[in-house]
């Protein structure tokens, strides 16, 4: 049928297609070569660790964002969740543990106890905020751009109220450093966590029904509904997962800087969208792969690292990042048009 017409020029078409399909990997590869040429310390151990932790923080957010974008929604609240999750979790832990007589905050803003409870609550609260985003989206029929924008403001306000604007120190909290600073077999644990999450999401999307639900919800909601799929449920799930990813990302962030502050993560929602877009996820929903998102996180973090190593002023950096976003999105759109 129609598909056979493309076979007239044998090999060259295959190789062009191969490059086109793996464009992101090639760009990543080029970047690595560029990094080695431009800076002697690029492949140094500590530089790689520095890249990997950023990759984890941004990559986790971007994976969550990608899931939301796959169901044709958008989540602007992920950055705010990164601050609100830990702040609310600590405030709540303080109340809960105060009942048993344990004071977890001393000296005004040093958190010294209750790590396990705090971690569990961070994940729970973050996921809950995501679910709330989703429920408002599907119940009130308000576009997610608006729901999550509102949530962004609400959460940052609440973060200020709960913390009074003060940073919290985790330097005296035993174990708080672990996630952000420990290595297993010289691989940072946070990166292992990121890879685990990434691989898990990829496998679940590919090998379980979840993937079909999410892709069909975003690709053609009507078709999904006609097949009896509860698309509202899957949208809520996607938002919940996005919140959860933001919560994990917040744990890594706070562990790395051994502190919690009200402004942490602000603006990261846009970075997460940018990464998802570079990775090939579209705003139209149902298109793109999480693998692309993971590679795109690496592309962005490595690019920022190289630019910082060569000492470029921030203005130029933002221009380059902007160009990468536009370039990548155009390339994806182009390659889709040409395959249709």
């Amino acid at each position: 049928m129609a598909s056979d017409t493309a076979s007239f020029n044998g090999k060259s078409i295959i190789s062009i297609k191969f490059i086109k399909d793996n464009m992101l990997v090639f760009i990543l590869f080029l970047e690595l070569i560029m990094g080695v040429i431009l800076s002697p310390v690029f492949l140094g151990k500590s530089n790689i660790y520095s890249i990997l932790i950023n990759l984890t923080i941004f990559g986790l957010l971007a994976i969550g964002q990608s899931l939301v974008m796959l169901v044709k929604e958008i989540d602007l609240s992920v950055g705010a969740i990164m601050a609100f999750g830990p702040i609310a979790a600590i405030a709540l832990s303080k109340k809960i543990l105060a009942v048993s007589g344990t004071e977890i905050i001393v000296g005004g803003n040093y958190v010294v106890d209750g790590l396990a409870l705090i971690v569990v609550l961070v994940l729970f609260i973050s996921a809950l905020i995501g679910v709330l985003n989703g429920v408002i989206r599907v119940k009130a029929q308000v576009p997610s751009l608006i729901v999550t924008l509102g949530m962004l403001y609400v959460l940052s306000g609440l973060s200020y109220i709960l913390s009074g604007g003060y940073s919290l120190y985790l330097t005296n909290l035993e174990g708080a450093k672990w996630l952000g600073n420990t290595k297993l077999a010289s691989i940072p644990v946070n990166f292992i966590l990121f890879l685990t999450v990434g691989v898990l999401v990829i496998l679940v999307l590919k090998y379980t029904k979840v993937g079909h639900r999410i892709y069909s919800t975003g690709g053609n909601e009507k078709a999904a509904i006609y097949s009896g799929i509860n698309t509202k449920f899957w949208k809520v799930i996607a938002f919940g997962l996005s919140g959860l990813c933001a919560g994990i990302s917040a744990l890594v962030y706070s562990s790395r800087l051994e502190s919690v502050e009200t402004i942490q993560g602000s603006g990261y929602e846009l970075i997460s969208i940018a990464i998802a877009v570079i990775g090939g996820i579209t705003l139209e929903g149902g298109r793109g792969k999480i693998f692309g998102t993971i590679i795109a996180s690496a592309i962005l973090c490595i690019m920022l690292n190289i630019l910082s190593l060569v000492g470029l002023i921030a203005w130029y950096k933002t221009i380059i990042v902007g160009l990468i976003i536009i370039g990548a999105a155009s390339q994806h759109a182009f390659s889709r048009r040409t395959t249709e």
Partner: protein
Amino acid sequence: MRKITKLLCFLLIVMMVFTVVGCGGGEKEPAKTGDSQNNSGQPSSTGNEKIDALYAEVANLQGEDALKFFEGLKDKGLNDAEILQFFIDLPLSQANAQIAKIYKDEGFEMYGKSYPKGETYNDFQWSKGSGTKITGPYSKNDLKLPFTDYVALDEGTVGDASKKYKIGVVFHGFSHPWLINWADAAKWEADRHSNVELNVQDAEFDNNKWASIMDSFISQKVDGILVWPMVEAPTGPPVDRALEAGIPVVSVDRTSGSKEITSRITGNFPANGAQAGMYAIWKLAQEGDLNAKAVMLRKPLGSTADAVRTGHFLKVLSYFPGIEILKSYHDTDNREEAFTNAQSALQAYPEIDIFFGTGDHEALAALEAAKMANRLNSRKDGKKIMFLSIDDSKEAVTQVKDGLFEVNTPYTPLISDIGMRVLLNIVTKSAEMPQDVITPNIPMVTQKGDVIFGMQTQTPDQWYEYTFGPALK
């Protein structure tokens, strides 16, 4: 699914209410930072016996008596610098119960104690007119660095002339007029030394990026790092990592959360607040009435600048029971917000004698609001409302010159050159540097360069060349 989500939402709301109510709207014990240091620095002990003796004398004075005492400081043999030091370290008085309570509730004691104080390096004294004129390498502004003679370092190579010294600088805000001048001064100093190679990075107000830049400096094995930390808590660990890697780190202006930092150059927040207080009392005395109502327009709650300045301001005022603080308003370093706050204050209080702003946004906003409300000369007998401003914008100094602001106490970004010299001294091991390098106090700016409680102040014209930012049109 519906049931579950409903339950979850309910739980979430309960949790939020619970925690919000529980935290009492953020009224929290004050931040206790750097608690291991400066515990010796009792506020009433300056190390200057002459001044310590005076504190014992002033302790039980209030109102007119206190005023008389202040007015007689010069006769007691204090020079200008000592007079300012007297007011900076002045203990809180219980004479004004309201002020004493605010001081205690907001934990100003703690902030005052933890802020580095003491003698300048080699007892350096700043004199008017000194310093160096430059063109900002980044901003292209015409600037005059006031402290180029402090921790002086000759032009030319430093340390081992055959060695390249790699210095990393991390701060936030190439887009911010105050901070870009901060970067200007650091770069200017580095550029004077041909074997210094500089890498200046902007973390764009993102502490995670700040940490990444620190880490990348560590992996580049730079010889030293100069930093402007936006906040304390998250900047501690990266600084500690650099120190662990054997790289000296020097902070300028704000302080990082690291207790081990090689050296820190701090500004003069205490002198800012204390001089605003001095001026207010002096002016009220000139007018012949020590009763006044003041509104404080303040920076974000919990910021060191706000707490230290307000604390030192209130300490001076605490000796005068006739002064009433009407209210404190906080903004998030945003002029629009400050303006709204000033408008609310003017609405709420028909009589306001003094607007104290902890930054120049606040004072400028108050002036605009008062003009708009037609309240500029609304005090008893048609006297003008007093505007006490801090910071160093050309706009604020111009307002002093035009007689619209009563006073401006400068706080300049042009101190990072000091930090660069301190760092180079450490890196090249050419001089032993203390952990705390104190910025010399700058006398306040008044319209006529008045003598206040025996201390000579500057005229706007004298200070104007040192102000930061682009020239006014």
